[in-house]
């Protein structure tokens, strides 16, 4: 029981990270109908910007503790958002109105570009940082097995919930969110109502990248090591999460992320670590057989 509880804590904190990345996939898919294959690498950029800020502020001894983490998070969100905006501007917008596969191919290209850019600029070696928030709370102690809820996990869960709450408010309650949903449902009509759809799409990329930056920062702080290649697997997992939850559905992305995180963690704990990815993808395949639109996705039936 104690063991399972520990896995639950681990699984939820991992799932939150996937969920944050998955929201970016699902948002972009919803609004322009493409899979942004470079999104995993935007997450990686977020982790690297966080790494550089940590080295600058914390290792330099200028700041420490929660204030430093908040600062690192904000810097990473801002700079990564700029990357997200640039990627859309350079690689996707010129191809709008072109055939459907063009931006997809461009996205794969962008993914390779970002990976190689970081590899060249930062080196291919794995980069470690010191733990910024060591320790935790012992919840249960059962026959020498200690269930620990680390401060870092608490931080991941709190920050993710806060960010998702702000994001949900933005999408459902503000004029910007309404414009985003309008572009998602009928872009031509949105333009006929005076909405600058290109600007709305840009902002979607900016928001998606900022969320990926939160995930990247959390990943760096939790695991302490990153390299230029982390975006690939995390991206594939988060994409899986988005599809599992129903691509295009924002709550679905978070739910899918949590499920993938939990499946992976529990499979590693009870069966074998080597096959954790197989388990996650198998669950996806099985779900899609019975629910082709994902858990919270909707079938495209609309009244004419």
């Amino acid at each position, binding site marked *: 029981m104690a063991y399972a509880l520990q896995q639950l804590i681990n699984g939820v904190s991992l799932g939150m990270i996937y969920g944050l990345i998955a929201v970016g996939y699902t948002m972009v898919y919803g609004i322009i109908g493409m899979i942004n294959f470079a999104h995993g690498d935007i997450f990686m950029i977020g982790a690297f910007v966080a790494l550089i800020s940590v080295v600058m502020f914390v290792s330099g001894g200028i700041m420490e503790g929660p204030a430093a983490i908040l600062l690192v998070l904000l810097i990473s969100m801002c700079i990564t958002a700029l990357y997200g905006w640039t990627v859309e501007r350079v690689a996707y917008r010129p191809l709008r109105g072109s055939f459907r596969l063009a931006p997809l191919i461009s996205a794969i290209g962008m993914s390779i570009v970002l990976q190689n850019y970081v590899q060249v600029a930062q080196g291919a070696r794995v980069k470690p940082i010191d733990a910024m928030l060591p320790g935790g709370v012992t919840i249960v102690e059962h026959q020498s097995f200690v269930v620990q809820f680390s401060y870092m996990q608490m931080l991941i869960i709190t920050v993710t919930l806060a960010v998702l709450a702000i994001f949900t408010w933005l999408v459902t309650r503000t*004029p910007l969110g309404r414009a985003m949903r309008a572009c998602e449902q009928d872009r031509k*009509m949105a*333009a006929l109502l005076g909405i600058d759809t290109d600007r709305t799409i840009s902002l979607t990329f900016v928001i998606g990248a900022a969320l990926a930056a939160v995930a990247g920062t959390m990943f760096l702080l939790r695991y302490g090591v990153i390299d230029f290649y982390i975006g690939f697997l995390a991206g594939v997992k988060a994409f899986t999460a988005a599809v599992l939850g129903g691509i295009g559905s924002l709550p679905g992305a978070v739910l899918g992320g949590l499920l993938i995180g939990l499946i992976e963690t529990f499979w590693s704990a009870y069966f074998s670590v080597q096959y954790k990815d197989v388990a996650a993808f198998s669950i996806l395949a099985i779900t899609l057989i019975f629910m082709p639109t994902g858990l919270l996705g909707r079938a495209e039936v609309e009244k004419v």
Partner: protein
Amino acid sequence: MLAVDTVSTAYGAVQALREVSITVAQGEIVTLVGANGAGKSTLLMTICGDPRARSGRVVFEDRDITALPTHEIMRLGLAQVPEGRRVFPRMSVMENLLMGAQVARHDPAPLLRQVFALFPRLEERQSQRGGTLSGGEQQMLAIGRALMSKPRLLLLDEPSLGLAPLIVRQIFAAIRELNEKEGLTVLLVEQNAYQALRLAHRGYVLVNGRITLAGSGRELLAMPEVRDAYLGGGH
């Protein structure tokens, strides 16, 4: 108020409009009648910049809008109720209406009251999703949404399509009321030529992307070629 001057438009290699010229003056209801595929909807969309005119000019209130992007044109005081209504299906009626006032600088509240007074049904259904409304309600919503931007020129594309005669009459009465009381200028595209020509001050007949006839509503109604082609000889 609006002048379309020898405009040609094409979708790829298919020529949709050939040197079309029409004008709409302040306070008028002007209608465009014509068969399916004559280019009526294309003309409305070309005025809004999507597709862009290949040649010719579109002038709105002395301003050349031919080259402006759609969203900038729509901020100048035009609104369109497009073909197929295009209500946002997964937004509530209220949100659909607010979308109409999204980029406007005025307070939406008085306009909302006005739209609800015109179409009380929308007020009853304000929290229902757009996609779940009936065809007639969606048409009311599309018109209401267009009015929320407080337009000076309203472009209406087939407001009677697929609706029961009673609702068509309601909608036409609403258009007339807006024109008479609010001074709203209307450019109306209709297949239902008889009712449209009776409502309109002036009309144009569009055949294969060309304007073939023009005149006052009454004149056009009386012309034998119009009667034969669009009124089924009867009425």
